[in-house]
């Protein structure tokens, strides 16, 4: 990436405290995690091509190999790609620019966050080096995680490092948003992306520590002999599931909110419209923060609990559709009578609306206790959360890179290749996950590598899904190679190629140099980032 200052200096990158460069370091780390975790997904799909052993060595050790792929795919996609891609890369690069600040409140803590995240990536990658590979999914449920021969400590420390990085980033950005907005910028003049990060970071601040505590107790049970999760000695296995999902369900909103924020920015800019029902959407985000802590028990429907808790949690889980609905209507409405430019970010944006609706609606039966008992542990759930959480959020990261690429790199993407990559990705994910919805309803369990005791036609659906995964792989190869090549060889970009009204486009050089703005930014009461009328 070229800068306004002198050429490339390695020390200015690895020791940097500049939020834009830290954002790019986050992006590199998260795309690396995505690539390796994506390879794991391909291995998983290849294995499921046939009911018995396909690519694992034999029926006896096959489960162990397969568990390691599942572990790495899940842990790296969520902790290494989605969260750092959104609240790491996007928030770092964009937030200070959007609020007119020269940097974050604590630049050195910001650098600490990014390198803690990289340390977490290193820990995760050690999976492929150590003899006792972790095999505990991304959930690490006891008693298996305590009894397995896999290296639990690698899992726990990956969570610790990335978790600590997230907590510090939350503190840093919350303070930055509250205290470092440009003079005159009121709360209802903030970008939607700023709001989405503000709310997501509150969730992150409060819930990540609980996950950290949950896995710490796991570590102590395994290595120090304590009995937190050991029923034989007065402990409780379900305690872990409660603590884990107390964080990990809200984590979905830590991913969902900034992903929505990115799409709001893209929609408004490409439709040249102000955000429809801006305040309602903001209240929707705040509503998600309030409700997010009361929904985790639906992950434990079949772990044993009194009916009155099940029903209560069904209500609170369904309740979260209200704020999500407010946000979705507002996203939709932003397009109303807009002069829409369909470039690649907008392609992803449009696809996101579809993913949001399919992924959101398939969540409703899963929230309902009666249906959930049937569908919960099947590939229906697997397809549901891949739509809403995996692909929706991943598309938001790709859209964000495509949308802000001119600002970040100073060059334009190859639009044709980007669109081709989009179509491969979009078709690929549908070919992958629709078959899983269908056989999920018919009873295909999640996480199984050997499904020979199930109806034979499941294999056909799995074959289709595997083809889909490879279509996505082609799409991602096109997308990522486009970023790399265009960053060096792309056409020079203007300062504001999309004609946006947001500060990061209107008030900075391309790409922005140290200090972001040539002059201090001041805005008046009439200014909004969506002033298109």
């Amino acid at each position, binding site marked *: 990436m070229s800068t306004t200052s002198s050429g490339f200096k390695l020390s200015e990158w690895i020791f940097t405290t500049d939020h834009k460069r830290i954002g790019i370091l986050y992006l590199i780390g998260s795309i690396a995690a995505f690539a390796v975790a994506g390879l794991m997904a391909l291995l998983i799909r290849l294995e499921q091509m046939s009911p018995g052993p396909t690519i694992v060595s034999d029926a006896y050790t096959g489960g162990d190999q397969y568990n390691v792929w599942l572990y790495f795919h899940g842990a790296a996609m969520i902790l290494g790609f989605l969260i750092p891609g959104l609240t790491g890369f996007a928030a770092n690069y964009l937030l200070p620019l959007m609020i007119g600040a020269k940097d974050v409140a604590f630049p050195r803590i910001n650098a600490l966050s990014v390198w803690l995240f990289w340390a977490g990536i290193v820990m995760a990658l050690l999976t492929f080096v150590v003899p006792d590979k972790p095999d505990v999914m991304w959930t690490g449920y006891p008693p298996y995680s305590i009894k397995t021969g896999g290296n639990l400590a690698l899992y726990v420390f990956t969570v610790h490092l990335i978790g600590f990085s997230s907590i510090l980033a939350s503190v840093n950005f919350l303070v930055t948003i509250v205290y470092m907005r440009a003079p005159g910028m009121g709360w209802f003049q903030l970008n939607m992306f700023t709001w989405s990060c503000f709310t997501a970071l509150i969730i992150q*601040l409060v819930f990540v520590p609980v996950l950290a505590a949950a896995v710490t107790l796991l570590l102590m049970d395994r290595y120090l002999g304590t009995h937190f999760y050991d029923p034989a000695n007065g402990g409780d296995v379900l305690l872990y599931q409660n*603590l884990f999902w107390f964080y990990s369900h809200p984590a979905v909103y830590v991913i969902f909110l900034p992903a929505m924020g990115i799409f709001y920015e893209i929609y408004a800019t490409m439709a040249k419209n102000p955000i429809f029902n801006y305040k309602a959407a903001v209240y929707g985000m705040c509503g998600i923060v309030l409700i997010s802590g009361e929904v985790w028990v639906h992950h434990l429907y079949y772990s044993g609990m009194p009916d009155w808790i099940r029903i209560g949690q069904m209500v609170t889980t369904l309740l979260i559709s209200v704020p999500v609905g407010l946000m979705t209507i507002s996203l939709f409405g932003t397009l109303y009578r807009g002069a829409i430019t369909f470039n690649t970010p907008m392609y992803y944006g449009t696809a996101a609306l579809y993913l949001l609706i399919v992924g959101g609606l398939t969540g409703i039966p899963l929230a309902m206790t009666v249906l959930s008992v049937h569908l919960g542990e099947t590939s229906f759930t697997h397809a549901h959360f891949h739509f809403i959480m995996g692909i929706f959020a991943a598309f938001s990261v790709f859209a964000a890179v495509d949308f802000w690429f001119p600002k970040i790199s100073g060059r334009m993407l190859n639009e044709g290749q980007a669109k081709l990559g989009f179509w491969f990705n979009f078709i690929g994910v549908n070919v992958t996950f629709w078959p899983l919805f269908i056989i999920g309803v018919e009873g295909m369990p999640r996480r199984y590598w050997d499904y020979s005791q199930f109806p034979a036609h499941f294999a056909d659906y799995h074959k289709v899904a595997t083809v889909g995964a490879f279509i996505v792989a082609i799409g991602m190869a096109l997308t990522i190679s486009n970023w790399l090549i265009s960053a060096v060889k792309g056409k020079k970009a203007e300062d504001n190629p999309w004609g946006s009204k947001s500060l990061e486009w209107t008030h900075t050089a391309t790409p922005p140099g140290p200090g972001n703005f040539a002059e201090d930014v001041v805005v008046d009461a009439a200014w909004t980032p969506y002033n298109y009328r």
Partner: protein
Amino acid sequence: MMKSASGHAQVHHWETSVAPMLVVGGVLFLVVFGFIGWFSYHSALMTILSVGIGVPLLVAGIAKWTSEGLTHKPLVEGLSPVALPIFIVSEVFIFLSLFVAYWTMRLSAGGDWPPAGTPTEMNLVLPIIMTVILVASSLTYHVAELKLEHSDLSGFRSWVLISMLLGLLFLGCTTYEYGHLLHQNFTPSTNAYSTAFYSITGFHASHVLVGLGVFLAVWLAAVRGMSNKYFAFCAGLYWHFVDIVWFFVATQVYYW
């Protein structure tokens, strides 16, 4: 960061700091590789190497960080006193999770408490002494802050030192207590109570240790004639938080 006062001049200068990476390296080697070396792979060599690499990195990182913090002017001054309480919110949730784990075990045990293996007479006087020590250290640190307000750096230094000594005394009590209990075969793996007891008091003690580390950084800076009221305030705030947590630890773990 722009330092220019002239308005139009864009400063062509990327800010850097070595400190964060040193700290991350220190944590990675000392805590992570040290733990894995000892507990996963039972390798003394790996543990010694990790600790040997980690400690100097961590100390160098913190020293560099402190000295930068005391000499560089931030973009907006005085934000750390609002940032630290936000960080403490997340700390509160870690402690809360530990207490939830303890309460779960305790309440599901029914009348079976304390479970078999707990010494019949736990020492209930020591926690009172420890409470007094910790509260006293909070007060002495408050005096230190008052001295700093009146620009009395040598008074500040002495009172910080007194607070540190009280903190050390508190950790001494913990060590004595642990030794005594371990001697009676009350170990972390004895029963549900020992599990909660060692985890909660140990986690609190680790916070005391971090607080002492921060005091040490404040004190060393003061010895070199440097001080920063926000830094001193944050060190104190953290210490008071650790103090308040102790009330919950003492009442829940010892006296309930």
